[in-house]
């Protein structure tokens, strides 16, 4: 017996709503069909993370925010900074030093952008160390996240190198002498040390050539490396998932108290193997994992 579903005629406001929805959705569908990007972003946004993640786990994205602040303020500063150690014949001061004073004293809001860039560097490094400490505390460097930890350490090292190269750019006394010592430190490495130091300096002594190559390193080489590594780092986080705090008892990754107690009683060193598969967990109503 055929039954026809009785469809109520849609009202005017419902029709309008439908049309608006279709209009809004249309560009996303267009983009998704041609690139698949919308699906990717949706996956990133709506993927599941453990229900009991901690505030400490925001340090990673906070470090990323600090890096973005550095990148943006750095690009703006680059529009006004001049990486030249030559002396300006009118004032007798080095041109690079003068451009920094110009940014800070004379350009509108230049003091704010320069200040943000300078202190953003310190905040970026602090956040990276705190994030590293959090990951260590959570044991989130263990299987399968070993590669992610190594990538993270490399980002930390590159971040500190970025700070070191950027420190020279104002070309004041602090900048010059900190760089002298830093490069000579590299020079004390056996065999290749003196060659590495001379390459960094662009000569036997620090000169204008040193400033320009440090500028190139600071603006192009190291940020490129950091961006590439951050991309890999984020990809691995999304792929491997976010850990839950190690003291969590019922969410993913936590060792349940009962299995722990049983293990200690039975004298085993490894956790008691649990039945494989998600069904086993679902089948124990109220049982904690």
């Amino acid at each position, binding site marked *: 017996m055929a039954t026809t579903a009785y469809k109520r005629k849609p009202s005017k406001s419902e029709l309008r709503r439908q049309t608006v929805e279709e209009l809004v959705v249309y560009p996303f569908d267009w983009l998704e069909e041609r690139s698949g990007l919308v699906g990717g972003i949706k996956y990133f946004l709506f993927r599941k993370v453990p229900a009991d993640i901690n505030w400490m786990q925001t340090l990673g994205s906070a470090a990323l925010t600090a890096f973005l602040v550095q990148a943006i303020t750095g690009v703006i500063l680059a529009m006004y900074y001049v990486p030249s150690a030559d002396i300006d014949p009118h004032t007798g001061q080095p041109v690079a030093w003068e451009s920094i004073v110009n940014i800070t004293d004379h350009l509108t809001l230049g003091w704010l952008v320069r200040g943000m860039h300078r202190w953003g560097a310190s905040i970026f490094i602090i956040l990276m160390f705190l994030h590293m400490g959090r990951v260590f505390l959570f044991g989130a460097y263990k299987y399968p996240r070993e590669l992610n930890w190594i990538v993270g350490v490399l980002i930390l090292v590159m971040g500190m190198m970025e700070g070191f190269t950027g420190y020279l750019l104002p070309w004041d006394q602090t900048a010059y002498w900190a760089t002298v*010592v830093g490069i000579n430190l590299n020079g004390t490495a056996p065999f290749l040390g003196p060659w590495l130091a001379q390459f960094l300096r662009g000569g036997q002594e620090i000169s204008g050539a040193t400033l320009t190559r440090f500028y190139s390193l600071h603006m192009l080489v190291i940020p490129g490396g950091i961006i590439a590594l951050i991309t890999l780092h984020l990809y691995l986080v999304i792929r491997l998932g976010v850990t839950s705090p190690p003291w969590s008892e019922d969410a993913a990754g936590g060792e349940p108290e009962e299995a722990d107690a049983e293990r200690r009683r039975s004298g085993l060193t490894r956790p008691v193997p649990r039945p494989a598969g998600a069904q086993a967990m679902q089948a124990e109503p109220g049982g904690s994992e």
Partner: protein
Amino acid sequence: MESEQPSPDTEHESAREEAHLPSPTLWPIGFAIGIVVVLVGLIIDPLLISTIGAVIAIVFGFLWARDATAELREERVVVEPERRELPDAGAEDDPHQVTLTPVTDTQVTRSVFLEGATLGLGAAIGGLITIPVAGFAVLPGFLGQELHKVDLGPIERFPLNQWYVATFIVDPTQGEVSKRAAFLRNNGTVADPKTNQQVPSFSIISNRCTHLGCPTQANGPSGLRFTGKPTIKQHTLTGPAEFVPVVPAGYGCPCHGSQFDTEGNRTAGPAPRALDRYAFEINHGRLVLLGTYSVSEVVGTGAQAQIYKYKQAGPGEHINGPEQWLYPLQPPHN
């Protein structure tokens, strides 16, 4: 949406409910080029170039019109279909099909050759791009290290046995960035071992600490107020130079705590050797600094000092003892 492609089968065209489209033709391109040449010729040379353009436009226009009116004259225009049908695989009764001989392992197949060629050419391109670029990045720091002589003025200007903190410009073309400081003293004269004549003796000690290159300071009062001697400022043949009188009990480094005595020997701290010194010559009665050299130790003081000289080494590097083999090859110095 209606298809905009002309049907390859013109005799069915009238049977379809499509817009009437002209038959496909390439001559309009030539016509357009002709028009462009006419217009350009109007700017450059109307007589010659516009005429050429007009000729081209007319010729191609004629060909285009001929093609476009082909079906009016009931001529058939043969057009290749847009989609090619793939030949059937395994058509055995095709006399033109070539039978492929089976390939043995010893033969280099086309795919293997292409693989190798791609990788090889890719490596070659990579090398062509990287090597000059890397060379440009690395080599300028190592080549062209030339010695800059620094004129410090007539030697009579320097009172006997008075230490000065000398600041001078080493390379006038580089300017301020090549400013250096040294602790300088006129020791009087000493007998030249080769000629047995009395030659001027100066102690000129670089102030760069041999630990990591920090600027050492003289441990002692300096300036007119505390030494009773005036500061000497002069403009020499190679640039400005300043000499501040000082009475040092030694030199100390503000970075990591190295201390040196007045001859530059290390007395405390992490410096691996004595302070470097400047070689010098007396040119027409003027003191001229040459390059620096490294010193392991100095025995004695002033004109009678025995200086154990070595080739210039970077800060932190040992020049004698077993650790010197950690730095077997030095980059080019001046």
